[in-house]
């Protein structure tokens, strides 16, 4: 049935959007680093998955087990080496945001440059789990379904981690008010680094999963940064469930407008929705209840 096709593809797309945005919401919301190189890290993970798959025959699901910890460590180092000096000298959150935008803007070109030197500028693509799965009589690509499912699982796991554990409570405290968090004995620098690195692990997860069906090249990072930024702002900065909700809303809106209006209007519909939600709730869907 057509409506099933449309809704299902919208939900799958929304899950993928949420997956792309979840790392940024941690990096921006908790560590307060507006990471403009975010999309470049996504693409780097796409390349890692590509190389592991085509050269070593490692399937992308197993590649997750390599890419996520590696990216966690790399992002921890990025935070410790490049971001800590900025955090230390910034008088307030606004100044840190400006500084981090400038610093990560530079980082963007470094990562992109390295990828260009290694891989050149051509398109890359491979095929993995590109098999149809029938759901309610509608065919969905298994790789996309898997990516959306993993996004959901990660969102729930993160939610539980943040809401139910002592560590999560500390991370939320840092997100809400770094100055006061220090007063109750939370090592804010360490938790911010942890949140940034965790965000990095999620970037790797999204890059690896997206590479299964996305045609990419070294210059495409900005596509992911923009998408993630829209979702993070729409969902409420630093809010994992907000990112999930915003991703699903955008995915569904895109599929519904493609299915029932015109596929040429998907962008217009998405941005109209984005504007409407920001007018209604300037801090994003879940923005007020900071966590």
């Amino acid at each position, binding site marked *: 049935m*057509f409506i099933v*096709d*449309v809704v299902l*593809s*919208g939900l*799958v*797309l929304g899950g993928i959007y949420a997956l792309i945005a979840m790392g940024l919401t941690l990096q921006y919301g908790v560590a307060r680093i507006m990471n403009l190189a975010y999309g470049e890290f996504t693409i780097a993970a796409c390349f890692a998955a590509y190389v592991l798959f085509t050269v070593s025959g490692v399937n992308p699901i197993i590649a997750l087990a390599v890419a996520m910890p590696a990216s966690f460590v790399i992002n921890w180092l990025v935070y410790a080496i490049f971001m800590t000096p900025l955090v230390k000298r910034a008088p307030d959150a606004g100044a840190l945001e400006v500084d981090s935008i400038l610093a990560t803007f530079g980082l963007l070109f470094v990562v*992109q440059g390295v990828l*260009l030197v290694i891989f*050149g*500028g*051509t*398109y*890359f*693509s*491979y*095929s993995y789990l*590109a*098999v*149809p799965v029938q759901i309610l009589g*509608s*065919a*969905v*690509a298994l790789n996309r379904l898997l990516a959306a499912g993993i996004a959901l699982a990660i969102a729930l796991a993160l939610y539980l981690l943040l809401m139910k554990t002592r560590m999560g409570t500390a991370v939320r405290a840092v997100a809400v008010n770094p100055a006061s968090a220090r007063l109750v004995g939370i090592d804010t620098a360490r938790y911010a680094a942890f949140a940034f690195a965790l965000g990095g692990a999620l970037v790797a997860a999204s890059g690896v999963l997206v590479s299964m*069906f*996305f*045609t*990419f*090249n*070294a*210059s495409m990072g900005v*596509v992911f940064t923009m998408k993630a930024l829209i979702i993070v702002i729409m969902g409420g900065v630093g809010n994992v469930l907000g990112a999930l909700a915003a991703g699903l809303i955008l995915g569904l809106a*895109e*599929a519904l407008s*493609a*299915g029932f209006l*015109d*596929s*040429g209007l*998907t*962008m217009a519909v998405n941005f109209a929705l984005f504007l409407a939600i920001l007018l209604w709730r300037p801090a994003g869907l879940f923005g007020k209840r900071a966590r």
Partner: protein
Amino acid sequence: MNTTRRAALGGIASAAIISTAHAQTGPIRIGYSISRTGPNAGGANVTTLPNYQLWVRTVNEAGGLRVPGGARRQIEVVEYDDRSQSEEAVRNVDRLINQDRVDFVLPPWGTGLNLAVGAVLNRGGHPHLAVTSVTERIPELVQRWPNAFFFLGRSSAASEALVTTLQGLQRGQGLGNTVALASVQDQFGIELVNAGRAALNRAGFRIVMDRQYPLGQQDLAPLLAEAARANPEIFIAFSYPPDTLAITEQARIANFNPRVFYTAVGTAFPLFRQRFAANAEGVMGIGGVDISSPRIRDYVARHTQVVGRPPDGWASPVTYASLEVLEQAIAQVGTDRAALIRAIGSGTFDTIVGSIRMENNQRIAQPWVGQWQGENFVAVGGAGTLTPVQFPKPAWRPA
């Protein structure tokens, strides 16, 4: 490879500058501005840059460009990245002409950038070998820029050749007349679909779906679901490389099996065949090469050896052929640019894609419709040596 070559040439260049007679015996300096980064990098790195590199290497290994009198002069390259931005491309070309004072400028990749630098090249009196520049406005452009040569022709020629090929299948093979159209919302996609829609209507085809999607869109499941529901005999997507792959993948997932399946730009990329393997069989697209030609086979082999992958089956060989035209024109008249423009406009040149003769600064006769048959993207429609269409396209197989 790049660094070593440039270092070696740098040595030759500095030696030459010391000599006062370098205008006659020193290297010929060729400059280009290319999109190494940004959204155009994908196209530039498949179609344009590898062919510039291959050509320079081939010429220099043979001793250099032949000039009248029989001497040979090495090529020295000056390269800039335009970051896919037209202002940057214009600045770069201006700098190549006025500061670096190169002998010739090779064009950037893409219609937009070619049109952007057209005026600067025209003012500088440089020949403009516009290859990856396909638009409806070519007949007007060549009036304004008599130094510009268009090697790939107009968008409507591509669409009309496709419709002619489809009519041939209707007459000879019993193809039906229902068509589903999809197109990308960007200059070339819009020009292709406008001309295609008109040609299909004129030829009596019935368009059962006509959808556009935004540039860069790779999530096209709803579009393909709608196409599958319309159940047409023919599916035509006037698409760009990333969406060409996404559309083909989604058609396979949805088990959508029209008898003719056409995706435009990017179908001819080796990546397409690598990604879809046996499922590429029978897919049609823009371009196509005459694989019976030994020169094309030799070109593919050299490209694969030097660049590390085969060329695409549309604009790559034509880009290389445009450089052969330049090379042969220089051999005839030397480096005087005005004489060179006249020579390119009036001469007949023997290239890897066959004999090229400009008509009003345009190459008109060429293959326009290609199809994957085995390992090759062969020409099946348009002009030139054509292979019969494989019809109907075999149904998708499970990957």
